[in-house]
């Protein structure tokens, strides 16, 4: 479904990504791990078509992917560090607005369903400024999945969610995979991420250091690889 080969990104003379190979197929869930500054968020921003890589080939659904391909954007869902919802609008209005931009049919019905799925049904007509951080993140999750994307890209989605919200998010990710979609998420949640992912990838300094499938790699091996990446620096 998605395949990136030798992705590199330079900002001026700074190398942020130094040749990353990444691929997901239908039903797969790829977990990205590594210290801050490893390039996880940058990789996700390239995969979500926010910026072109300096070099390397990115293909989606069998065709080269470009930043200005609007049809392709409709098949991607992205949830970043910021919830990306408007504080002055109600939860419902936020979803309806995004639904309109994605040209969905039956927007109101879909928005209602999405809101009750993330447990915000009773609060749907309240202004988002009054939401707690966890509620905003739930709304952001509803927003990212509203148009039922084929590929879901999540940048540290567990952050700022309450425990119930985390379970909800995990269920959402699993159902996305069962539907035949793909998920790529970046996380600092070692145990939760290990259970969730169908493939694990540890990044450090813009490169992939270690990758394996949880079936063949016990959790302590994964933890050792991650500790190596975290401790390899100067800290």
């Amino acid at each position: 479904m998605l395949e990136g080969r030798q992705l590199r990104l330079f900002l001026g003379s700074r190398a942020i990504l130094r040749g990353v190979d990444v691929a997901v197929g239908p039903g797969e869930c790829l977990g990205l791990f590594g210290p801050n500054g490893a390039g996880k968020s940058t990789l996700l921003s390239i995969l979500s078509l926010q910026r072109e890589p300096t070099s390397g080939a990115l293909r989606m659904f069998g065709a080269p992917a470009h930043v200005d391909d609007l049809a392709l954007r409709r098949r991607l869902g992205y949830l970043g560090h910021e919830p990306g919802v408007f504080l002055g609008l109600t939860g419902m209005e936020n979803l309806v607005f995004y639904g309109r931009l994605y040209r969905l049919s039956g927007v109101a019905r879909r928005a209602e369903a999405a809101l009750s799925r993330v447990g915000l049904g009773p609060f749907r007509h309240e202004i988002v400024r009054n939401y707690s951080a966890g509620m905003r993140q739930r709304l952001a999750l509803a927003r990212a999945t509203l148009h039922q994307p084929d590929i879901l890209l999540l940048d540290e989605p567990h952050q700022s969610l309450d425990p119930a919200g985390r379970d909800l998010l995990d269920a959402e990710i699993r159902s996305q995979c069962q539907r035949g979609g793909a998920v790529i998420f970046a996380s600092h949640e070692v145990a939760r991420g290990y259970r969730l992912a169908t493939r694990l990838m540890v990044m450090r300094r813009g490169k992939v250091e270690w990758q394996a499938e949880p079936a063949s790699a016990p959790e302590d091996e994964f933890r050792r690889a991650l500790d190596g990446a975290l401790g390899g620096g100067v800290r």
Partner: protein
Amino acid sequence: MIRAAGWILWKDITLEFRGRELLVPAGVFGLLIAMLYGFAFDPAKNGLHGTFPGLLWLGIFFASFLAVGRAFSVEAEASQQLLLAPIDRGSLFLAKLALNILLTLVLAAVMTPAFAILLQTGLPPETGTFLLIEALGLVGFSAAGTAMGALAAQTRLRELLLPALLLPFTSPLLLGVVSATKALYGGEVAAAGNWIMLIAIFDVIFIVVPVLLFEFLTEV
């Protein structure tokens, strides 16, 4: 493209109605300018008819700065997600342009009568033509302001940079609107027509060129 722009505009107007974050501060500032001009120039003693067009337009431009500079910052809380939506980049520009035109028109509608009363000059004769000048002038100001606001919003200085980027561009526009208004006060409608042409040309340039170049700005 137009439909998406319409939805973004609808969202911005809803936000503005709820929060009044742009119009109220800018409007208060605009009225304050009128009052301070009144103190500084003493309109009762020295008639201000000669300088009124310049005072009025500078006042409107300065107050509009507050509103136009913020128009892109409204998006800051969700700009990333908005840019990820499958919409044409030009539609975002159009939506912001329409928002800025509406905001500056409302500001001018409040400020013009206030200036005319507080500076004791009254509105110019040929009020219809004067309204046309105001509308065209504010469309031009909003177009240039939207383009420069898009540039300034992505810099470290944000709105602080906007005056330095925008004011040199608006100098021909200021010349146009002030001269046209002056011509109306002097009863020279034909001369005003020539200035209105200049304003219209400015409007066209600053709507077309940014739409063409806006694509580049959102790429990085």
